[in-house]
C-alpha cells in the first residue's frame, strides 16, 4: 500500500497536469495566438534600484498596474522575469506606454514614462521590458520577439 506521502505526491502530479491543461484551454479561449500579446519585465543584471510600481497602457488604454512586494522585487533581482500582462490586440501597429516609479540606488525617487511602438502579426507577440539604472537615472529597454 502506498504511503500517505506518496499519495500526496501523486495528487500533486495530477493537479499539475490539470493546471497545464487548464492553461492551454484558457490560452486558446481567451488569448488566441492571432491576437495574443504578452508583456514581460525584468531588471538588468546586478540591478539594485527599488521598483515600487509599474503601469502599462496599450493604445492609450490602461491594461496593467502592479505594486511590487519585497518578495517580487527580490525575485526580479535574482534574474526572474515577471509576466506583467497577457491580452489581445488586433493585427497591425500599436502603441505601448510604460510608467515606472521607485527609488534609485542613491535613495532618490524616480518616476518615468516611455512609449514604444510595436507591430502585431499573426503569431503571438511577446514584448520584454528591461529596467535599469544608468548614470543616475532609470532606463527601460524594450526587446521584441
Amino acid at each position, binding site marked *: 500500500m502506498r504511503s*500517505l*506521502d*506518496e*499519495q*500526496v*505526491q501523486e*495528487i*500533486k502530479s*495530477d*493537479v*499539475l497536469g*490539470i*493546471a*497545464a*491543461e*487548464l*492553461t*492551454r*484551454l484558457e490560452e*486558446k*479561449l*481567451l488569448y*488566441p495566438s*492571432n491576437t495574443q500579446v504578452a508583456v*514581460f519585465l*525584468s531588471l538588468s*543584471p*546586478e540591478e539594485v534600484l527599488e521598483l515600487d510600481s509599474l503601469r502599462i497602457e496599450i493604445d492609450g488604454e490602461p491594461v496593467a498596474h502592479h505594486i511590487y512586494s519585497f*518578495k517580487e522585487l*527580490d*525575485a*526580479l*533581482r*535574482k*534574474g*526572474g*522575469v*515577471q*509576466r506583467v500582462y497577457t491580452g489581445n490586440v488586433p*493585427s497591425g501597429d500599436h502603441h505601448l506606454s510604460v510608467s515606472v516609479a521607485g527609488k534609485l540606488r542613491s535613495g532618490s525617487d*524616480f518616476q*518615468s*514614462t*516611455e512609449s514604444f511602438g510595436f507591430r502585431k502579426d*499573426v503569431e503571438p507577440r*511577446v*514584448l*520584454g*521590458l528591461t529596467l535599469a539604472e*544608468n*548614470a543616475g*537615472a*532609470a*532606463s*527601460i*529597454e*524594450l*526587446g*521584441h*520577439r
Partner: protein
Amino acid sequence: MSVLRFVASAAAALLSAGSSTGTELRDLHFGETLYHAYQAHYFEALERLDAEIGQHYAVDEPELDALQHHIDHAEFSVGDFELHYRMHHRAGRAIKAVLEGDVDEPVRNEAAFRLARIHFQKDQPEAALHALDRIRGRIPEKLRDEIEFLRANVYLALDRPADAVDVLRRLQGSQPLAGFAAYNLGIALLRNGDELDAIEQLDRAGRTDAPDDATEAIRDKSNLVLGTLLFESSEFDSAQSSLDRVRLDGPFSNQALLRAGWANVSSQDFERALVPWSLLAARAPTNAAVQEALIALPYAYSQLDVHGRAAVLYGHAVETFGQELGKVDASMRSIRDGEFLTALVREEIRQNTDWVIRLRDLPEAPETLYLIDLMASHDFQTALQNYLDLEDLRKKLVAWQSSLAAFEDLIRVRRDYYEPRLPEIDDQFRRIDARIRLRMQQRESIAMRLENMLIAPRPELLATSDEQHAGLRIEQLEEALASSESPVADGLRARLRRLRGVLRFGLEMRYHERLTRTHEHLRDLTADIEQLDARYDAFVRTRQAASHSYVGYEDSIAGLRTRVGEALERLQTLMARQGHLLETVALEELEVRRDRLEAYQNQARFALADSYDRAAKAQAAQAR
C-alpha cells in the same frame, strides 16, 4: 532626469539572469518560471516549466528554440522545483533522466550529486552513496566541497564514521562549510570512539568565526554538545565554559542554560547555578527546559539552605505548572475540536517565513502553544507541509471549478452572438469568393497571353476598342464588296486595303509602347491582388477564430470538470487522513508534555512542603 530608451531588435529580449542563473537569459518564459521559483511558488514554476520543456521538445527544430540556451539548467530546475515542492519521486525521475541523457561530464556529475541529495533526504543512504559513486571526471568547482560534505553525511548515516572522518578532515579549510564541517567532524570522531579527539574538534568548532545566522547556530550547537560531553565526563568547569559560549538569544540557549546550571550543581557550586537558572526560569514557561528550571532553581536555593526563598519559588512553580496544564488541556480540547488544522492554514501567518514560530504568538490559538518543538521535527514538518500543500491545491481546484463555469458562460455568449450571424456572413463570403476566383482566372489568362506575345507578337491583341471597331467595319465592308465586280467596287476595295494598311501600320508602330504599358498595368493588378489575398487570408483567419472561439470546447471542459471533481474528492480524503495524522501526533506530544508537567507539579508540591518544614525548623532553631 530619467532616460528611457527604445531598442528595436528582431531578436528575443536579451536579459541577464544575474548571479542566480549564471548565464545570460535568452528565454523570457524560462525567466518567468524562475520568477515564481524565487518566490517559493513552486507549483506555478513547475506548471510553466513543464509546459515550456514539453513545447521545446515538440518543435521541429528544438535547437532554434530560445530554451535551447538553458535546456540543461531547465532540466535541472524541474528536479529542483519538484524537490522543493516535496515531489521526491518525480524529482528523482527528472534528475535520473538528466543523468542518463547525452550530457557533458560536469552536468552528469551535478545530476548525480542532486540525485544523491534526494536519496539522502529520503533516508536512503545506500542509494545516495551509489549515486555519489557515479561522480567521476570533471566536477563543477562550486559543488566540489558540497559533494564531499554530502558523502561524509552519507557515511555517518551508514554507520561508517571512520570514512566520514577522512572526508571531513579534508573539508576543514572549506570557507562556505566552516562550522558545519567542523561540527560534523567532531560528531564523526565521537561516533568513531575517539572521544578525546572529538572534544578537541568540538572545541575548535565552538570557536569558529560565524559570518551568518546558520553558522552561529551550528557553533552554538557545537558548544552545547561539547558542554554535555564534558559534563558527562564530570569535567564540570570545562563544561561550564563551553556552555557559556552559547549565545543567550540563540536557538540552543535554553538547553545551554539548563545544562550550565546542572554543571554548577554537579561541582557543588549551587550559588553559581542560580545565575543561569534564574535567567531561564524567567523565560516562556511552555519550553521544557524552562519548566525544568522552575523546579531546579528552588532546588539550588534549598541546597544553599535558603528554604524560605525555595518555598516561594516552589509555590510559583506549582502555580505555573497548574496554568500550563490548563493550557495543555485547552490545546488538547482545541485540537480535538479541529481548531489546530484551522490555525495552521491561516493565511496571515503563512505570509512570513518564520510562521511556525509566530503561531505561538497568536492570542486565540491555544492549540499551537505547545507544539513549537514538535513543529521543528522533520517528520512533523513533512506531514505539516503536505497538509498545507493539499490545502493550497484544494483552493486551486475550487477556484478552477468556478473558472470552468465562467468559460462555459463565455462560450455560450459567443455562440449566441456568432451563430445567427455566421450563415449570412458565409453566404456573402461565398459570393465574393466566386467573383474573386473569376477575376483571378481572368488575370491569369491575361498574364499568359502577354507571356506568349513576348515570343510571337500579336499587335491586334493590343488594339483599342476604336481600332477593333474600325477593323471589324473594314472586314464587313470587304465582305459586302466581295461579290461586286464593278469598277466602283474595285476603287472601294483599294481604299479599304489602304485603310486596313493604315490601321495595321498604327498597331505595329504602337505595339511595343502598348505592350510595355500593358505589362505595367498587369504589375499594378498583381499588387492589388496581393492586397486582396492578404485581406482574404485575414478574413479567413478571423472567420476561423470566430468558430474556434466557441466550437470544440465541450469535451475538454467536461473532461477537465471530471478530473477536477475527482481530484478534489481524493484530495479531501487525503487531507482528512493527513490532518488526522497531524492531530494524533500533536495530541501524543501534548500527552507527553502533560505527563511531564504533572510529574513536575507533584515534585514541586512535595518539595514545597519540605521547604516549608525546613524553613519552619530553621526559624524555630533560630528562635531557640
